């Protein structure tokens, strides 16, 4: 019954989405408030139905109803409850349902909190949102229905892929989707603006918070996924330039560019056409990511070939939305009025530079990700484009961007003073040189690249806070006065500083981890002692243990520093009884400050030993603290008063119409 109701709710949501995608448009055309207001109620009702459909699938997984194919294939009655819930989106059908649920959530939020939008704009935005929703409801219902029943219900399920039985699955996909799908809002706003043929600073003020929300979630989602890969895979890597990772990085880069260009548009009413284009591109890249991951074109051309409906369907959605929106852009962009002037050396100029480098970096990732696919389709040759390609293309483009980051907030709008900004950044530059010297001396020569990169990171971090320090007149006035000024500063200024510092922090982590990482790979037996980076690790015992749905081999290591016992680390290797003995490696991590010791196990050897991999990763946690700092900056910015109350109220007449709805 639950499965059928869930299915039915999804069909109803499709029906509502179809109404929402047409009637409000007609209303906006005829200037009929009643018809336009249909958008609001249908968006909320749609959210209700998708949410209940999603809840139904969660129920089925929790109660282990193996008569439903999706539950049978991805669940097991012995699986811990938390993985029964997260397993809902640990598979194709369920994750698509999560995708549309989040899409409906964003639509519902615009409907609920968009009462200060002009009625026609809101109607059009929600209609565009419903086009996307309809396409994906159709996709789910025709090719990926999670509610299909099995004719002969089995007694036991096939269990979830053990790699996914981790708390990372609870957090990472929902966050990533909140980011991916969140960009649909700026897309819908862009399309609505093109249809209306009117766009102004107020438009940017509405779009920016939504973009910011999506960006925060995407940042956290990517960072979380990276940390998950780091501890779950067992060899300490945290970024692989895997196409699926690139699929999430591309919208992030474009979205970051969009955040900055929307700022120019909001403050200076310039870069309108570009901002619209970026909104379209960002969501198009989200759709491309969905296509790359969901069609199966990456992991297996075979999956694409035996079940072509899915791949072709998403490809169709992708081409219709991307092609359609770009055509609309070409047709209507010229109707938008050109905005304010600015000199190349100005805050606007700096933000243009930011956009230029971010989009170009995004383009190189795009080429690296899609070139192998295109080449295979065209010539049949198979190549792999891996980390070396991206290190050679992406990194050189990011360096000038990072040098420019501290200058941006220092330049005035319209016409800036580059020399003045450089003078104000002298302290940051000096600190960076000091960092360069210290790292150089500490590393005793070696690659010059690492100290230079650290210096760049320090420049970015100190530069980010220089502006802040000047504004609160730090060191120049009594503490109480400084604190008062700090409180009075707009939160968005704090946000900018934190977000920019976050990039520097992450860069330090990346450089230290890749340059000064020490590793030991070998076999160890009980009682063996290993020394790494000053730590002494003694393998104490090697034992078998039984978990709820797996058996595991646990090694226990005593870690000591200067012959003082610090802690015990217990990496293990799990063998899952349910999936044909499939095994996973559970690494053990010991955090010291922001550095980590990392142990993972390999195969047991014939003579009673075991293969181990031990790493010391200096400052590795900074890699993820950086993005967290960026997200924090985003949240501070989001809480800025100006963003919340800045949007102008609609005219009194319009408001009365809305009350009468």
């Amino acid at each position, binding site marked *: 019954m639950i499965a059928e109701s869930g299915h039915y709710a999804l069909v109803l949501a499709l029906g509502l989405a179809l109404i929402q995608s047409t009637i409000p448009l007609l209303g906006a055309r005829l200037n009929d408030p009643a018809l336009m207001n249909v958008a609001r109620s249908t968006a909320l009702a749609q959210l209700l139905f998708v949410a209940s459909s999603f809840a139904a699938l969660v129920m089925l997984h929790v109660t282990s109803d193996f008569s439903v194919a999706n539950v049978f294939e991805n669940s097991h009655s012995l699986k811990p409850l938390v993985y029964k819930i997260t397993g809902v989106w640990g598979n194709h059908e369920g994750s698509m349902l999560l995708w549309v649920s989040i899409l409906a959530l964003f639509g519902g939020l615009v409907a609920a909190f968009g009462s200060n939008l002009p009625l026609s704009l809101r109607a059009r935005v929600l209609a565009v949102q419903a086009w996307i929703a309809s396409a994906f409801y159709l996709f789910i219902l025709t090719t990926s229905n999670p509610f299909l029943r099995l004719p002969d219900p089995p007694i036991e399920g096939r269990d979830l*892929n053990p790699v996914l039985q981790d708390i*990372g699955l609870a957090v990472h996909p929902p966050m*990533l989707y909140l980011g991916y799908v969140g960009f649909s809002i700026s897309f819908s706003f862009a399309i609505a603006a093109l249809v209306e043929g009117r766009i102004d600073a107020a438009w940017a003020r509405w779009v920016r918070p939504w973009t910011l929300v999506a960006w925060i979630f995407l940042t956290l989602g990517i960072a979380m996924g990276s940390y998950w890969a780091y501890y779950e895979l067992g060899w300490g890597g945290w970024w692989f330039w895997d196409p699926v*990772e690139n699929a999430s990085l591309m919208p992030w880069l474009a979205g970051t560019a969009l955040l900055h260009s929307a700022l120019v548009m909001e403050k200076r009413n310039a870069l309108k056409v570009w901002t619209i284009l970026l909104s379209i591109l960002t969501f198009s890249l989200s759709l491309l990511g969905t296509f790359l991951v969901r069609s199966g074109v990456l*992991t297996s051309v*075979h999956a694409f070939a*035996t079940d072509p409906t899915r791949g072709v369907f998403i490809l169709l959605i992708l081409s219709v939305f991307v092609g359609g929106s770009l055509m609309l852009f070409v047709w209507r962009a010229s109707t938008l009025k050109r905005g304010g002037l600015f000199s190349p050396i100005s805050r606007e100029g700096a933000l243009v530079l930011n956009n230029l*480098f971010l989009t170009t970096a995004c383009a190189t990732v795009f080429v690296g990700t899609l070139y192998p696919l295109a080449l295979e389709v065209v010539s049949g040759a198979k190549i792999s484009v891996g980390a070396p390609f991206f290190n050679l*293309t992406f990194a050189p483009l990011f360096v000038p961007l990072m040098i420019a980051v501290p200058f941006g907030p220092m330049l005035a709008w319209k016409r800036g003073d580059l020399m003045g900004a450089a003078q104000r950044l002298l302290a940051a530059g000096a600190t960076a040189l000091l960092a360069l010297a210290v790292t150089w001396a500490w590393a005793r020569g070696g690659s010059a690249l690492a100290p230079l990169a650290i210096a760049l990171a320090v420049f970015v971090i100190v530069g980010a806070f220089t502006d802040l320090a000047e504004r609160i007149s730090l060191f120049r006035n009594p503490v109480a006065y400084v604190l008062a000024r700090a409180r009075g500063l707009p939160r968005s200024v704090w946000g900018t500083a934190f977000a920019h510092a976050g990039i520097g922090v992450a860069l330090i982590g990346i450089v230290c981890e890749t340059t000064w990482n020490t590793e030991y790979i070998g076999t160890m037996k009980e009682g063996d002692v290993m020394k790494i980076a000053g730590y002494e690790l003694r393998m104490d015992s090697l034992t078998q243990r039984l978990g709820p749905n797996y058996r595991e081999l646990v090694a226990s290591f005593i870690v000591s520093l200067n012959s003082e016992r610090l802690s015990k680390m217990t990496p293990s290797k799990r063998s899952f009884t349910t999936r044909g003995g*499939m095994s996973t490696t559970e690494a053990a991590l010991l955090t010291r400050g922001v550095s980590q010791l990392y142990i993972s196990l390999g195969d047991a050897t014939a003579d009673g030993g075991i293969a181990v991999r031990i790493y010391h990763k200096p400052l590795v946690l900074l890699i993820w603290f950086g993005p967290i700092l960026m997200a924090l900056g985003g949240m501070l910015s989001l809480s800025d008063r100006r963003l919340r109350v800045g949007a102008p109220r609609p005219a009194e007449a319009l408001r009365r119409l809305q009350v009468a709805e």
Partner: protein
Amino acid sequence: MTRKQRRLTIIGCALGVLALAAALVLNALRDSIVFFSTPTVVAEQRFAPGRRFRLGGLVQPGSLKRGDNLAVTFEIADRNAKLPVAYKGILPDLFREGQGVVAEGMLDASGVFKADTVLAKHDENYMPKDVADALKKQGHWKDDYSANEADGTFASQGAASAAQGVMR
């Protein structure tokens, strides 16, 4: 500056950055891409030692031998040919005899493929894409590989990289 000059400055900058990016991409594409091959192709075309490529196929049952200090040797085979592979390190969790595998490295003078990376995806039904295609072309396809392909394509960066059980 006039409006036109300003615009030209920006367009000039944009073109400069794009040209730089294009140069970087072309340079990187020349130097850092790795071609995929199979034992049959290697045998037919007599690959020169020292050229980096990826080798895909099935791990020949009975060929896996473990030496001292994590050294392993095994054979990668397709229908018509097989090639000895030497590797030092820990093999991925899903490395099994009879399963598909992709190794990256180069041939040495004696014709042994020295692998520095061995890839296997974290799914018991998964077959590396290149291997699946190559085997299918040769009519060496087993149907059970196609079952449950949804797992391998899970939409998350973490899982997909999880899938990329690269060994260093």
